[in-house]
């Protein structure tokens, strides 16, 4: 079992770093090469969401990404925003996507969740156990050891 933990200040520039590390660990863990684009996108979306929430609430605390390859490849992205901020996560129907009333931020949130749900078969969004915050937990199969 190997675990890699990465914490970064909630700035957009660091999301790319999290993607790069997440894919590197996935590759080493033995996640199928064909899945790595999806792993990259999903980790990016989860981190983008966490950064957006921290900025929305003026939080300077670090966002944490924890990667574990025990049996499967599990990635947990942990934010510290109030839990009610997660309630807005919903997939938007096509006819609402280009509606004038929808703000770009709301569209991005809805689309981001659609991508997470579409690319990650094993996805859980749940409150963190200690203090405010949400954990986005994503699991991918490992095919090569």
């Amino acid at each position: 079992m190997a675990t890699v933990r990465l914490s970064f200040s909630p700035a957009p520039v660091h999301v790319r770093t999290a993607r790069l590390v997440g894919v590197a660990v996935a590759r080493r863990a033995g996640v199928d090469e064909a899945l790595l684009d999806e792993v990259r996108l999903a980790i990016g979306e989860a981190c983008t969401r966490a950064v957006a929430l921290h900025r929305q609430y003026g939080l300077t605390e670090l966002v944490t990404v924890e990667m574990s390859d025990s049996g499967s490849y599990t990635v947990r992205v942990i934010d510290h925003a109030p839990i009610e901020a997660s309630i807005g996560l919903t997939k938007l129907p096509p006819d609402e996507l280009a509606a004038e009333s929808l703000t770009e931020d709301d569209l991005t949130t809805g689309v981001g969740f659609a991508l997470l749900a579409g690319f990650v078969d094993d996805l859980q969004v749940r409150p963190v156990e200690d203090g405010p915050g949400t954990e986005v937990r994503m699991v991918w199969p490992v095919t090569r050891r």
Partner: protein
Amino acid sequence: MELSLATRTVAGHTVLEVGGEVDVYTAPRLRERLIELVDAGARDVVVDLERVEFLDSTGLGVLVGALKRLRTAQGTFGLVCAKEPLLKIFRITALDQVFPIFPTVEAATERDGTGPAS
């Protein structure tokens, strides 16, 4: 790879070639460029995504914003994309039903090719 942006004119259309990674960090630059183009009078805009290596929800939000801006300005907006990983992103988000998507710049810039920005 860093975001790259280059503009050219093809058959009366303004074609914005985008390369590299479009994400939460770089998408604001794409948004600014698209706003500049519309403010400068561009009305038939095509965004060529062929050299894009990564596109996330923030980038998609910027593209929808441009579509709406051109719709308001009575213009047209189309995308060029033939890469399957990117096309899958448009399908999963249902944005393939929102954007006119063409396999080549030539197809996107044919007269009446893009149709009204709907």
